[in-house]
């Protein structure tokens, strides 16, 4: 902590963005966030995969789940996010087959065990999660599985950061880069952002001491007016990242524009199945499309994920929206910014 205070002493006001839901939670839980010097503000960016998923995607998932011939396989956090006609959880209550799985490989297994049904895997997440989907598609291809599909929703981190920076309506002086996304990308991946936008990027892990170290490095850069990539999580993150994982992504997917919640469509920020694997796309198979994006009435998650609004400024926060009765994905997801504020900040404010 002393290092951060020392680096911040006499420096200008600055806003540092963390772009990883796990960081958001860790900053709150450890108390690091509340220890920041007055001129250092930590803001949360679009780092929770569930939160950035557009409602159009969720509606398509629910539409698929309603089909008798389909089993939807998904990571846990997705099931409670409300779409226009309810969540996957409520669909399950009405008899839909929705299976929560731990690994994309489990979805392939599920397809093999249920030859008379079609298994649709909800492929969401950033670069940490994408290689697992790519591997699952390759596994399904290897055994010519005909009842395994994915609903493509993966996100690519860097184009989203660029979109935030070029929109310019949120002041961001530097990025705390996500540890496990960076395991795949490598620290060098942030060089273009540093060069083009002159914002420092520091890769950090999840332990509070490591986060503090990273924040200290970031503050020092901003104070000195320099911008470079630094890696405070060298034990897991190399310069070049995990090339085998990236090869797998590149074999199966090609960059494509995709819709982010409230941020609209961002070029090259998503991934489409390449030609040889296009038969695995559930949209073509079942004739579903991603509808328009929208937000639940009154919910301001779209601003929250871009760092434009603190959760407590949403009129529904803790009034009509709480983790037990969430209105938007930022409150549903255990890593959502609203959920983190609710869980760790409310008690402190004595409300």
């Amino acid at each position, binding site marked *: 902590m002393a290092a951060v205070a020392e680096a911040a002493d006499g420096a200008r006001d600055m806003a540092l963005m963390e772009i990883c839901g796990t960081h958001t939670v860790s900053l709150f839980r450890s108390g690091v966030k509340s220890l920041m010097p007055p001129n250092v503000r930590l803001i949360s960016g679009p780092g929770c995969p*569930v939160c950035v998923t557009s409602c159009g995607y969720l509606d398509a998932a629910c539409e698929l789940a309603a089909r008798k011939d389909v089993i939807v396989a998904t990571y846990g956090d997705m099931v409670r996010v409300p779409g226009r006609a309810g969540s996957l959880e409520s669909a399950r209550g009405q008899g839909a087959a929705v299976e929560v799985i731990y690994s994309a490989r489990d979805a*392939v297994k599920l397809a093999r065990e249920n030859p008379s049904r079609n298994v649709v895997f909800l492929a*969401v997440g*950033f670069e*940490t999660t994408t*290689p697992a989907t790519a591997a699952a598609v390759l596994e399904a291809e290897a055994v010519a599985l005909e009842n395994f599909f994915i609903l493509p929703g993966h996100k690519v981190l860097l184009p989203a950061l660029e979109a935030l920076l070029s929109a310019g309506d949120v002041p961001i002086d530097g990025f705390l880069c996500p540890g496990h*996304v960076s395991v795949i990308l490598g620290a060098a991946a942030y060089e273009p952002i540093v060069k083009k936008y002159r914002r420092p990027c520091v890769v950090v892990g999840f332990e509070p001491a490591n986060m503090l170290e990273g924040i200290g490095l970031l503050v020092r850069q901003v104070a000195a007016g320099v911008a470079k990539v630094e890696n405070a999580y060298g034990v*897991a993150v190399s310069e070049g990242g995990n090339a085998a*994982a990236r090869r797998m992504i590149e074999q199966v997917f090609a960059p494509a524009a995709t819709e982010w919640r409230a941020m609209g469509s961002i070029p090259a920020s998503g991934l489409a199945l390449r030609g040889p694997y296009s038969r695995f796309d559930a949209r073509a198979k079942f004739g579903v499309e991603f509808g328009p994006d929208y937000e639940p009435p009154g919910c301001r998650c779209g601003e929250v994920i871009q760092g434009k609004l603190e959760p407590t400024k949403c009129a529904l926060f803790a009034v009509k929206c709480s983790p037990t009765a969430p209105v938007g994905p930022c409150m549903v997801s255990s890593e959502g910014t609203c959920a983190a504020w609710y869980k760790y900040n409310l008690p402190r404010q004595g409300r």
Partner: protein
Amino acid sequence: MCLAVPGKIVEILDDDDSGGAPAVGPVAAVDFQGTRVDVSLAMAPEAGVGQWVLVHAGFAIALLDADEARQTWEYLEASGAGQMPEQLKAGGDGGE
């Protein structure tokens, strides 16, 4: 959802043992503080028995040294993420 957790490789499995999913790379049994889970080594093919790996959604994504792995575990446990093995099994609520 992007959280990866450290585990120790206890055995490299034959194709037949790897739980019914065909594998694009080697599959290993990995111990997470007493919970054994099958993990694909497709993205860390150089990993061997006795080594620590960082695992996300059923895939090893990086090698870790033992000290770092232990530290991470201690942090996860202290922070109430001691339910991690449960999560691994049930596929719980994976934040990224």
